């Protein structure tokens, strides 16, 4: 893999961020809004609930992590959409650029933007609402890593879907995190769900992260093996997503979809 083309993909995104506040704003604005809403809700619940449960880490903490996952996924898809919106596929793929270089560029772009968002969220949640991840210690790293891997995998798979189905299918991508969230137990223990939803939930690595986080915060037994299973699942899904993207790209080259990719191409 050559580094210059990867740097080119990243640089293009930086150019767009630098020249357009519209692109920068969502990186911080939506996460800030989420933190403020869930932060005050957590405080309110702490005040009225007759329980030893601390809602700040239980609600605000998981919201922060869920937002991080969403930003990671959307970081990949948004960087991909830049090429869809500017109808740049012909210019881009009639070059020596390989799929591995392109996808790596998208992923690294997403890492930069989502880490900036995560940092902003952490600062806001810690300073304003006193959120602390001390109880998690070093386990914070694997939690973040699993969410990161799954976010990347979902972003790559969603980009492949848009490449296959056409630009209009972009609208199927934005609600993906919301579609997944009921199954992975972001806001409640996964055991709250009916059996069939739990089965689906366990197919998504974030369910292992949020179960683990909740156990740690509440001083319950935490299974490292379960988290490792989540990590293995996320890694497997990342590899599958990469193969899926490469397969869709080959299909697009074979059928002519890539050459005539336009706003209305669905087929």
């Amino acid at each position, binding site marked *: 893999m050559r580094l*210059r083309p990867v740097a080119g993909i990243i640089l293009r995104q930086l150019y767009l961020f630098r020249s357009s506040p519209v692109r920068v704003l969502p990186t911080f604005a939506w996460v800030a809004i989420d933190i403020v809403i869930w932060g005050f809700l957590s405080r309110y619940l702490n005040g009225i609930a007759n329980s030893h449960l601390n809602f700040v880490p239980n609600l605000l903490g998981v919201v922060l992590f869920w937002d991080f996952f969403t930003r990671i996924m959307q970081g990949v898809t948004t960087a991909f959409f830049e090429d869809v919106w500017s*109808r740049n596929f012909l*210019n881009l793929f*009639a*070059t020596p650029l390989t799929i591995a270089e392109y996808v790596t560029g998208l992923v690294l772009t997403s890492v930069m933007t989502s880490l900036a968002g995560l940092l902003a969220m952490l600062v806001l949640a810690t300073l304003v609402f006193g959120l602390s991840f001390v109880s998690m210690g070093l386990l914070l790293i694997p939690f973040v890593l699993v969410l990161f891997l799954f976010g990347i995998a979902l972003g790559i798979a969603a980009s492949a879907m848009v490449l296959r189905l056409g630009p209009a299918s972009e609208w199927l991508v934005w609600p993906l995190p919301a579609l997944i969230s009921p199954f992975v137990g972001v806001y409640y223990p996964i055991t709250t769900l009916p059996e069939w939803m739990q089965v689906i939930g366990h197919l998504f690595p974030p369910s292992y992260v949020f179960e683990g986080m909740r156990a740690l915060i509440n001083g319950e037994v935490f299974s490292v093996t379960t988290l490792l299973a989540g990590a293995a699942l996320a890694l497997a899904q990342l590899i599958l997503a990469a193969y899926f993207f490469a397969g869709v790209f080959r299909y697009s080259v074979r059928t002519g979809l890539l*050459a005539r990719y336009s706003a209305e191409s669905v087929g």
Partner: protein
Amino acid sequence: MPATLHRPPEPVTDPAQPDTVLGVTDLCKSYAHVTAVEHVAFNVKRNEIVGLLGPNGAGKTTTINMILGVLAPTRGTITIGGIDVAKHRSQALARTNFAAVYATLPGNLTVEQNLRFFGLIYGIANLRSRIETLLAQFDLLHLRHTRCGVLSSGEQTRVALAKALLNSPELLLLDEPTASLDPAAAQTVRKQIRELARQERCGILWTSHNMYEVEEVCDRVLFVSRGRILLEGDPRALPAAHGVHSLEELFIRLAREPLHATEERPR
């Protein structure tokens, strides 16, 4: 060069010849119910400008897309500088570049940003100096910080040509490069392209509907109709050889009655 009736699928020359930058052999592209390109075979040599002519829907752009690796042939081989595009896509495409009216550069990047972005994608060494040379060559220095989306179509064409020369390609594909230029600008571009073919030992495949331009620029032309090459020869000698007064007249005859036109060739 004498006019010759093209007899597909035999290749015109051996692609392994060192002065051949593009070798196309028995190229076919079929979709479910349509054959877009059928047994096309030709080559382009260094310092040569070959015109690919034909009516709309003849298969010119399909052929170019296959050469650029964004469309897979159903059958046949394409070599660029002796490298098989199907087997070594990146290496082959590193030796080529293109400009087409339908593939505008991202409008949300400035001229300089676009050149830097694509320069990195092509892995150009000394990119800064190469960009300065091209900006000066195409009279774009004063537009370097202007977004491509707000440029006139003529200016966009010049930027596309600058991008097409970033990697000093051995093979340059130009799909109607002067279609949106005023006569003076078109003449300048033609002159620049001719000089490029002469000085940099670059082979050029050129499509145009402007027969005056084709006569002025091309060393050899290929007439394509319904996915097949019907005629090949010197654009200045072909009209007389086929009993017509001009290349435009020959084009019209071939477009309306492709079989009749080639059969009526005088002995």
